[in-house]
Structure formats: structure tokens, C-alpha cells
């Protein structure tokens, strides 16, 4: 796939995703379909899909213990080992996985030493080659915070931590936020961060030739979808206000399995909701499954202990080998001549039975 075509194709797909609810609710008022049926179907696909995929992965065994060792192994007591990057046991693996999952430790390694010439004198410097790590971290955590913030729509009463998060996130509204004083609600920090990060993740796919080379529609599509999701959400919050009470009624209804379809929610809400539904329904069939996959990755979730704890391969099978007897049969005379010890003397060669 060429990148121009990839982007066009993905953009087209996202536009279709936006148009469907727009027309569906805007023109045909299919509120039950878009407000109840599709969200349920999407959630079902999401949960069942993930479970099926994870089960499918775990059906394949891990025949060998192949952790990537990124530090000193455990050996003598007087040699300092690196229990996180080269874990000896489960404890180390758990810490390694926590670092990997919560801080994207491997991406963070992307550091690079640079030699610059300052006035003709070479100087060692560290280039800050962590934009990918920063963008990934900001993106994932903003997404998480935004997700948690949305709990205020599904829960009654709203849990304390959600309110707290909301206040922290929205602290900018106290101060010099650009929109303040225009009758607009406070700007959430995470909204801005998410959009900035996701834009950067998209831009680097277009600007860096190597990444452009490997990128597929499957890479552009989720990014564009998330941009559309965020954009529709922000439109809803800052421009086309919707009836929050009605939205909450719908959301709580969904989660209590007694769905209702209240009147008076703007189309923009259904667009936002439908994009989300597409995203989560697409999730189990896509690279987004890395969320679950990282936990199963054999180079990260195994300890480097195969020299002192046996790792069993469930499908290990006997193989044909070249036995010592076969070897000696072939070379016996020469071995004897060279003074190498043998199992059988030379004259018995004739009687040697065929092995195997």
C-alpha cells in the first residue's frame, strides 16, 4: 500500500463512520438503533472478541524460554545482577511487566549519544530522542483519564475520585484558559494533550520516511478514528452543548440493562457514541490488541532461569541423532591409530550390529 492511498482510504472510512449516525439519527431518527442496539453490540464484540483472541493466543504453548535479557543475569553473589531487566524469578518479571505496561520502559530506551562539534571540539551530548515515548505515554494516560472522567455520565452518585480527577484535569479553568469568560466551560488538560499526542503520532507516520514506509491503513485508521472521537467530544463540550441530563439517563440505562431512549439529545452525541462503538468493536480484530498482547509476550513475561529451573516444552518429541556408536563405527580405525580410547576394539567392527 502506498501511504497516500492508505491515508485516503482510512480517512474515507472515518468519514463514513461519522456520516452513518449523522444520517441515521439526523434524518431517520434511529435513536434506538444508535443509542441502544449498536452500543450493546459493540460492547459485546469488544469483550467477547478480546476474550476469544486471548484464549486463541494462549492455546499456542510457549515451547522455549526466550526472554530478551537486557541486563546482567543472576550468577555469583559478588556480581550485581539486574533483577528487573534480567529477572531471575516471578518477582522480577512482575516488576519488569509493571514498568513495561505502565511506563513503556522499552520505548524509553530510545536514547542516543550524540557527538557535536562545539567550536571545532567534539563534545558528547545526549540527544533527546524520546518524542515517541512521550507521545505514547501522554496519549495512553490522557485516554485513561478521559475514560475515567466519563464515569460521571454512567454513575449516580458520581464517585469521589471521578470528581477529583475532573477538578484536577480542569484546573486550567481557574486561570488563564483562553476560552474563559466566553460562557464556555473550562478546558480539560487531557483533551488538549490527547489531541496533541495523537496528532504527533499521526504526523510522524507521514513525516518520517521509514515509518511512512511501514505504515498501513490499519495504522492510520485507528488514529484518525480517535481524532474524530476526540474532536466530536470536544465539539459537544465546547460548541454544540447537549442535554447532559438526558445523556446521563441514556448511559445509566445502558449500564443498568434497562435501556431508555430519552428525547432531546443532539446528533453530535450519537456521532460521538457511534465512533466509540466502531473503535471498540474494531479493537479485537486489530493491532489495538497489543493492550492484551503485551501481557503474553514471551520475551518479556518469562524469567531468565532456564539454566536452573527446567522449562518444559509440551510438544517436545524425540529426534534422530547421530549416536556415538555410529560415529565410532565410522572412525574406529583412525581413532585407535591416533591413540584415542574406543568402546570396541578394531577386530570387532565386523560383528558390530547396525544401530538405530
Amino acid at each position, binding site marked *: 500500500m502506498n501511504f497516500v492511498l492508505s491515508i485516503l482510504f482510512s480517512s474515507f472510512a472515518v468519514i463514513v463512520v461519522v456520516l452513518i449516525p449523522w444520517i441515521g439519527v439526523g434524518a431517520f431518527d434511529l435513536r434506538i438503533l444508535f443509542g441502544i442496539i449498536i452500543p450493546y453490540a459493540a460492547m459485546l464484540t469488544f469483550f467477547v472478541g478480546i476474550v476469544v483472541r486471548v484464549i486463541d493466543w494462549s492455546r499456542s504453548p510457549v515451547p522455549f524460554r526466550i526472554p530478551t535479557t537486557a541486563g546482567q543475569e543472576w550468577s555469583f553473589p559478588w556480581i550485581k545482577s539486574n533483577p528487573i531487566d534480567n529477572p531471575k524469578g516471578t518477582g522480577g518479571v512482575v516488576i519488569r511487566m509493571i514498568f513495561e505496561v505502565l511506563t513503556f520502559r522499552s520505548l524509553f530506551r530510545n536514547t542516543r549519544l550524540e*557527538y557535536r562539534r562545539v567550536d571545532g571540539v567534539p563534545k558528547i551530548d545526549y540527544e533527546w530522542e524520546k518524542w515517541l515515548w512521550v507521545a505514547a505515554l501522554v496519549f495512553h494516560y490522557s485516554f485513561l483519564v478521559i475514560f475515567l472522567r466519563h464515569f460521571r455520565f454512567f454513575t449516580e452518585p458520581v464517585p469521589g475520585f471521578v470528581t477529583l480527577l475532573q477538578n484536577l484535569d480542569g484546573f486550567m479553568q481557574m486561570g488563564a484558559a483562553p476560552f474563559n469568560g466566553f460562557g464556555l466551560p473550562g478546558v480539560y488538560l487531557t483533551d488538549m494533550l490527547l489531541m496533541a499526542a495523537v496528532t504527533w503520532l499521526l504526523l510522524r507516520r507521514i513525516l518520517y*520516511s*521509514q515509518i*511512512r514506509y511501514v505504515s498501513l491503513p490499519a495504522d492510520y485508521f485507528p488514529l484518525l478514528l480517535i481524532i474524530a472521537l476526540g474532536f466530536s467530544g470536544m465539539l459537544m463540550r465546547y460548541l454544540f452543548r447537549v442535554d447532559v441530563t438526558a445523556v446521563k439517563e441514556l448511559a445509566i440505562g445502558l449500564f443498568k440493562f434497562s435501556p431508555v431512549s430519552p428525547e432531546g439529545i443532539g446528533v453530535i452525541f450519537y456521532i460521538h457514541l457511534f465512533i466509540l462503538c466502531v473503535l471498540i468493536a474494531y479493537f479485537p480484530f486489530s493491532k489495538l490488541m497489543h493492550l492484551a498482547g503485551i501481557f503474553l509476550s514471551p520475551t518479556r513475561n518469562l524469567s531468565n532461569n532456564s539454566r536452573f529451573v527446567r522449562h518444559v516444552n509440551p510438544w517436545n518429541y524425540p529426534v534422530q541423532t547421530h549416536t556415538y556408536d555410529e560415529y565410532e563405527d565410522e572412525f574406529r580405525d583412525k581413532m585407535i591409530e591416533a591413540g584415542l580410547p574406543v568402546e570396541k576394539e578394531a577386530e570387532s567392527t565386523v560383528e558390530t550390529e*547396525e544401530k538405530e
Partner: protein
Amino acid sequence: MSIDKILAEKRSKIIKKWRNAIIKSYPEDGQGFLKREKSQFANPVGLTISTEIETLYDEIIKGENTEKISSCLDSIIRIRAVQDFKPSRAVAFVLQLKQIIRDELGSGHSDKMRILDNRIDEIALLAFDVYSACRQKISEIRVKEVKNQVGKLLERANLISEIPEQRPAL
């Protein structure tokens, strides 16, 4: 304005153009990497090209120190000799400089330019020598390795037994 002055003034522009021209000889999708990375260790190819052509340019303008020119050529061509280039392509970058300089100079300066042209031609020949030496080295290494694999054994010949063409009956 004298040609020397122009060449000194436009030094960085000419060098940049030259560098880009060299990098364009690499596979299209790797070019960004070669240009972007500034680290000596993460991107030896890109960095060698960038730094060596600077020195090379200065030496070409001065036209004195053949040894220095050779060493710059060696650094660049040693790399290009093991990449997927035909010999002509591997050393063509020297001649590319002519056109780049001419574009920068504009019309006029034909006398001076002729001197410079001749100088660059000579350096192109030098580049050919360097390229041949690198290829020669590769061949030497190949031969040496073959000998060395069995190095000590060859001294005590006749001791190797290869797998026979037909599988021996076991």
C-alpha cells in the same frame, strides 16, 4: 567577486546540496534516516558523509593536500564499496560537485571554473583508485578467510574428510 570568495561564501550551501545529492543515491525510504540522525554511532553512514565532504570540499578548493583528500575519499568510498552500488555510482558523487558549483556560480568565471573542473576530474580519478583498493581489500579478505578457516590444518595437509557425494550406507 572572485570565484574563491564566492566559493567560500556559499560553502555551506554547496556542501548541503552535495550532501543531499549523495544521500539521494540511497534507497528512497532510508534517506530520511541518513539525513536526520546526527549520531556517530546510530548512523555512521550519514554522519561520515556529512563530515567528510566538508573537509573534502575545503581541500578541493585549496587543491593542495592530496593525502587529506585521499583520506576523505576513503572514508566515504569505503562505505559505498560495500553497499549496493555499481562502481560508477559509488564514485559518481565527486563529479556531481561540478554541476552543483556551476549552478551556484552562475555564468562567467569560465577560466577559473575550468581549473576547478580539472581538479575535480583528478579527484574523480583518485576516487577510482580508492574504490579499487577497497574492492581489492574485500577480495583479499575473502581469500584470507578461506585459507584461515582451515589455517593450521593446511600446514598439516590431508587431514580433512569432506562429506562424500553419496550418502554412505550406515
